[in-house]
């Protein structure tokens, strides 16, 4: 007998060891349950991280754009409206009013990391007989590339764009039959017309984006779009991406701009994440519940099998609380050991799945995120579940009348 263990622990361990087969079967059950939870949680965390990474490396977290232009009804005097039908005015490409001042104020904010002014609008790319509609984005590379990592997606040439250069997607280059160093003619509805040299070709991993997106310097876009000295958006990144919505509201309240956070513009993504999390929570809860019922069932059987032992122990002066603890401890031990085995199972399955499951392009489906925290939480939760599941059997054991128990 171990000198350091109190009676309750000694008895609990011995009882579990004596019914080894039962113990192993229920341990297997708990391990599978915990394994499923660990596997699902880690995979979901990985998928989410991947989603967020993809979303955040290809778009700003907050965009500041000019306010919508609205037409006001013509009023003659108070209470009377002359022209009750108000038509929404067309939204011209407009510059943000006093954008330099707003940019400086944004840069001064502690929760904003990068501010990148861009001038964007639509245009037409022409080369020979081919022409394609494009989205022209004029930007300052040193700022903008901190937000949208175009250089990471370059497949030919480089991202160094000059005032006479343009970065185009692979799809657009194919459509125009152009390659690196070729010249294309870009015209806009505002009457701008420039011949630009393709200095880089990128692949954003999305056909639509590869077809439409083009990047030029801010000045080039300004002259093409007739926005001399103006910008259409200020793109921001923030320190805490989850606070983006609050920051956006704050900015909008204090500046004459419309601020859209990535949370707002990607509402669908968040709904999907939320739905996944809900179903994950449900599955976890039900797995936990079935594990708890399994532990309770095994311990109830154990109490019945050991009622004579319990009776004898009570006759020799064992207190009710001691008996209660013996069974609570058994529940806790089962939960804890089961979670250890389950964590190993879950992590193993995760590593296996991570190496097998690939995206179409061969890259990993989700990053392998195995946080020790997850295991600590699972172990703590499983131990707690075990103890809680043991309450009913333990009470039953503690309440056994020794006379009845010994008689059987």
């Amino acid at each position, binding site marked *: *007998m171990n*000198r*350091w263990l109190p009676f309750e622990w000694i008895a609990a361990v*011995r009882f579990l060891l004596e019914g080894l087969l039962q113990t192993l079967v229920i341990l297997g059950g708990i391990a599978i349950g915990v394994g499923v939870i660990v596997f699902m949680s880690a995979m979901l965390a990985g998928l989410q991280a991947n989603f967020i990474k993809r979303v955040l490396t290809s778009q700003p977290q907050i965009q500041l754009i000019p306010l919508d232009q609205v037409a006001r009804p013509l009023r003659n005097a108070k209470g009377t409206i002359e022209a009750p039908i108000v038509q929404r005015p067309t939204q011209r490409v407009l510059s943000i009013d006093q954008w330099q001042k707003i940019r400086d104020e944004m840069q001064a904010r502690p929760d904003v990391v990068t501010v990148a002014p861009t001038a964007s609008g639509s245009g037409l790319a022409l080369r020979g007989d081919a022409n394609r509609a494009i989205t022209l984005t004029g930007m300052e590379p040193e700022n903008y590339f901190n937000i949208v990592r175009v250089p990471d997606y370059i497949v030919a040439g480089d991202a160094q764009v000059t005032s006479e250069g343009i970065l185009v997607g692979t799809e657009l280059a194919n459509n125009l039959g152009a390659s690196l160093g070729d010249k294309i003619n870009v015209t806009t509805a505002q009457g701008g017309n420039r011949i630009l040299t393709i200095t880089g070709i990128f692949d954003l991993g999305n056909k639509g984006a590869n077809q439409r997106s083009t990047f030029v310097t801010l000045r080039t876009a300004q002259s093409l779009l007739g926005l001399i000295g103006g910008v259409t958006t200020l793109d921001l990144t923030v320190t805490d991406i989850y606070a983006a919505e609050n920051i956006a509201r704050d900015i909008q309240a204090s500046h004459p701009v419309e601020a859209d956070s990535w949370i707002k513009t990607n509402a669908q993504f968040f709904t999907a994440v939320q739905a996944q999390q809900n179903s994950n929570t449900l599955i976890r809860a039900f797995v936990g519940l079935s594990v708890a019922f399994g532990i309770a069932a095994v311990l109830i059987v154990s109490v019945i099998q050991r009622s004579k*032992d319990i009776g*004898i*122990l*009570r006759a020799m*002066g064992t*207190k009710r609380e001691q008996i209660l603890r013996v069974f609570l401890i058994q529940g806790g031990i089962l939960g804890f050991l089961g979670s250890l085995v389950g964590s190993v199972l879950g992590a193993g399955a995760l590593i296996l799945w991570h190496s097998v499951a690939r995206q179409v392009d061969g890259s990993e489906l989700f990053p392998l995120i195995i946080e020790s925290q997850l295991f600590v939480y699972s172990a703590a939760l499983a131990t707690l579940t075990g103890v809680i599941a043991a309450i009913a059997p333990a009470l039953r054991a503690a309440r056994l009348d020794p006379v009845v128990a010994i008689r059987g």
Partner: protein
Amino acid sequence: MAEVLKLEQIKKSYNLGTAVETEVLHGIDLSMQSGDFLALMGPSGSGKSTLLNIIGLLDRPTSGRLLINAQDTGRLGDAALTRLRGETIGFIFQYHYLISAFTAHENVMMPMLVDRGHPDAEMAKRADVLLERVGLSRWRNNNAMNMSGGQQQRVAIARALAMNPDLVLADEPTGNLDTKSANAVFELMREINRERGTTFLLVTHNDDLAKRCDRIVQVVDGSLAT
């Protein structure tokens, strides 16, 4: 000589207050002095097991007084009774009832372990001394289930003595054994009674063994017929 046990008008009824209320003990008076070796006899259903359970503080009488070492047990709560039971009473049951998850040595240690909470060297030593006394030192580390009935019963005797109780209650301790083993077990209890002055109350159906006790008390239909 000190009075270890005193029963005054002990009555026990089952299904109290219902239509099928049955009184199984009708006012038992009994007294045992320290060092007594008493045989309790009586046919099945006479109420001797109920009486033994009440004396063993496993059950409470419906009325009457039960004194152990001159202490009235009627006013004690459940926890105090459990404590008193652990300290002053040792049990030997008909079917040995060793705890199968433990060895013979650990079974003998068990009452001390339950009382003190942690195992210590002293209780291990005492268990060895007791096992030696019942002649089972060699079987020390055997699992309780790998022993013969007679051996198990001798371990149970050692266990009953672990807390050095004033009173040992034995419920047909030889009832399940062959004559030779039964004799050996009885003689062991008798020797311990003489050596240590431990008081024994023995329920038995065996006339031969009963005759070798100091006193015989007959329970007939819930009353004593001495």
